[in-house]
């Protein structure tokens, strides 16, 4: 182990993971704490992914309840519950459903299970631990909207999730919950699992559709902005996130009013957050939406129990790798899209990465940028070139080869990907610039790479400067005439 630790701190010892204390050995990462469990309630059972366990714990009751209602009434229930999309944008599912143009059949349902945003994992646990809940959610959506075909797209690298979903679909077809004549009704839906092969960009919904059509997963030009207008095979298509759909069974059994009994008025229900980094008890938690604050989540006894011993918070990413970074002055914001957006970032995909005072801000930013440079699909020039330039400049600063003009150059490249004042978190009395950023690209991947750079330059400019004050002259390599290049 020659090089100093990546982030500046030595990794050992890892947080305690002894069984008990909310940690379930059969569901690594998930922490069962106090609080309402609308979608992770079955995780406590080792066999939660089987049909037998699912049926004995209220499974497919939500579907039966929905089938007793008209499709329009089911849609109304979802709309009145204000179920917000859990994929990142936080758009209300019931409103999105309403964008389907009447009469333009067939409609398709595509489930986005391509979870790859750095720091994010909750869809994977939902697919591995409770695949029937997701299938039931798909069925409820199909019934409400008149969809006969559903494609469940699972991230390529998630072999166990693919296995659990395939097995659950086999059970559900066999038992008459999926396929022809569901529950003895004239309601028929096919659900087919598709799976990817390693491309972050496929999480963007139009890229996902391209991939599902058997092509390179590159985002489509907008407008149209919503696949509900033009989607799979040019037909109206609803793309919903795994966690969003997993809420539907509980919602149909208990009703929108009960659902709104949890969380805040504008963000009801619960949400899963993956909280990782330098914490005493990192984990994936099901949290009441909109009412819990970052401080409670990071420091609360019921959650992560604070920063690892002997250290203090330096910064945190509030909503996955794409989100502008937050600092200690943001700890009292609630886990709710609007206030987080007003403060200059986003709640995104429910991924919070906490970094302590040993973390090198430049190095941490470089690592996130490196991800976006690798994952840029190459369709838009500002992103394809810009993300790579950002990565290379950060790399040379870390290698002691930085130039005094590099900080301005980083900001300038950022401005070419995302023009105008880039969203930054407010601090020291300064105003925040609200999310989302403007962009010169088709999709938000490019602007996402700007987030860590601008966030850290604004807050820790002196860390950048201290790395580039070393000013040895740049060696001039003289190539003799006629020498091979």
């Amino acid at each position: 182990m020659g090089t100093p630790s990546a982030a500046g701190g030595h990794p050992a010892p890892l947080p305690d993971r002894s069984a008990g204390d909310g940690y379930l050995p059969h569901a690594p990462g998930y922490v069962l704490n106090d609080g309402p469990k609308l979608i992770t309630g079955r995780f406590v059972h080792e066999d939660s992914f089987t049909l037998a366990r699912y049926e004995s714990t209220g499974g497919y009751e939500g579907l039966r309840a929905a089938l007793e209602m008209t499709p329009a009434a089911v849609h109304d229930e979802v709309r009145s519950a204000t179920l917000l999309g859990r994929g990142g944008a936080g758009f209300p599912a019931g409103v999105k459903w309403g964008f389907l143009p009447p009469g333009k059949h067939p409609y398709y349902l595509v489930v986005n299970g391509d979870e790859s945003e750095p720091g994010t994992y909750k869809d994977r646990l939902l697919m591995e631990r409770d695949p029937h809940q997701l299938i039931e959610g798909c069925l409820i959506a199909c019934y409400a909207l008149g969809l006969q075909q559903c494609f469940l797209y699972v991230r390529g690298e998630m072999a166990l999730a693919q296995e659990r979903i395939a097995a659950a679909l086999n059970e559900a077809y066999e038992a008459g919950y999926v396929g022809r004549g569901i529950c003895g009704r004239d309601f028929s839906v096919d659900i087919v699992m598709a799976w990817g092969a390693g491309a972050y960009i496929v999480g963007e919904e139009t890229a996902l559709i391209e991939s599902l059509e058997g092509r390179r997963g590159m985002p489509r030009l907008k407008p149209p902005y919503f696949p509900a207008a033009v989607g799979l095979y040019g037909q109206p298509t609803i793309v919903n996130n795994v966690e969003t759909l997993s809420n539907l069974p509980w919602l149909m059994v208990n009703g929108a009013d009960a659902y709104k009994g949890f969380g805040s008025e504008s963000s009801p229900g619960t949400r899963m957050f993956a909280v990782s980094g330098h914490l005493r008890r990192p984990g994936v938690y099901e949290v009441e939406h909109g009412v819990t604050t970052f401080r409670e989540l990071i420091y609360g006894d019921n959650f992560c129990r604070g920063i690892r011993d002997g250290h203090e918070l330096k910064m945190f990413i509030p909503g996955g790798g794409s989100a502008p970074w937050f600092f200690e002055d943001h700890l009292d914001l609630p886990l709710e899209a609007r206030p987080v957006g007003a403060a200059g970032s986003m709640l995104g995909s429910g991924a919070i990465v906490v970094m302590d005072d040993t973390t090198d801000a430049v190095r941490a930013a470089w690592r996130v940028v490196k991800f976006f440079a690798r994952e840029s699909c190459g369709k838009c020039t500002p992103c394809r070139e810009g993300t790579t330039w950002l990565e290379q400049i950060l790399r040379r600063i870390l290698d002691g080869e930085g130039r005094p003009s590099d900080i301005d150059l980083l900001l300038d490249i950022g401005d070419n990907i995302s023009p105008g004042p880039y969203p930054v978190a407010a601090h020291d009395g300064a105003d925040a610039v609200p999310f989302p950023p403007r962009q010169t690209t088709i999709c938000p991947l490019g602007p996402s790479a700007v987030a860590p750079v601008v966030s850290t330059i604004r807050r820790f400019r002196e860390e950048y400067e201290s790395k580039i004050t070393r000013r040895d002259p740049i060696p001039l390599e003289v190539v003799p005439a006629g020498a091979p290049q």
Partner: protein
Amino acid sequence: MTLSDANEAQAAEIIGWFPRPRSALIPLLHLAQAQDGYLTDGAMRRIAELVGATPAEVKGTAGFYEMFRFEPVGTYLVNVCTNISCLLWGGEELLEHACESLDVEVGGTTDDGMFTVEEAECIAACTEAPCLQVNYRYRGRVTPADFDRLIEDLRAGRAGIAGHGVLAQVRQSIPAERLAGVVPPEQAREAPVWLARNDVEAVR
């Protein structure tokens, strides 16, 4: 023959689940990679015929996706995550240890063809950092000693992990009589019966 008889049958079934054959492309490529450990030219040509694309389109599409390989890799592909959450808990050190103990560069394969080590992007196990995957099966909170033990187990065939290319050990299968019916979009212009009936009831 480039796909086994069993895989030809499987491919035909999968194609039948999609409104357009081309949609089966990625699943079929996975089928071929599970069979051979990587994508052979012969398999890609056969798949092109099956989905109605040219061989160039098939290879051009496959090349977009990192998991598809055009050359053999080790029996066990070891993907060590170094993205942000793993970086904070020593992911880079773990990758370095992996390369040192197996005596390979990042991206390299051991001489005996057993192991290929790669640097992975976030694999969605961030609270269990540092983490890795062996043929896309997770190991979390991996210390250097854990890593060495894992390699020993893999060499001894004790880890229960199939060779590279195999993902899910269970495949979806739909009994013909249970399939609701898949047709191209242009043959499905009518509203489904349950929705149509509801409209009538609403009018009444």
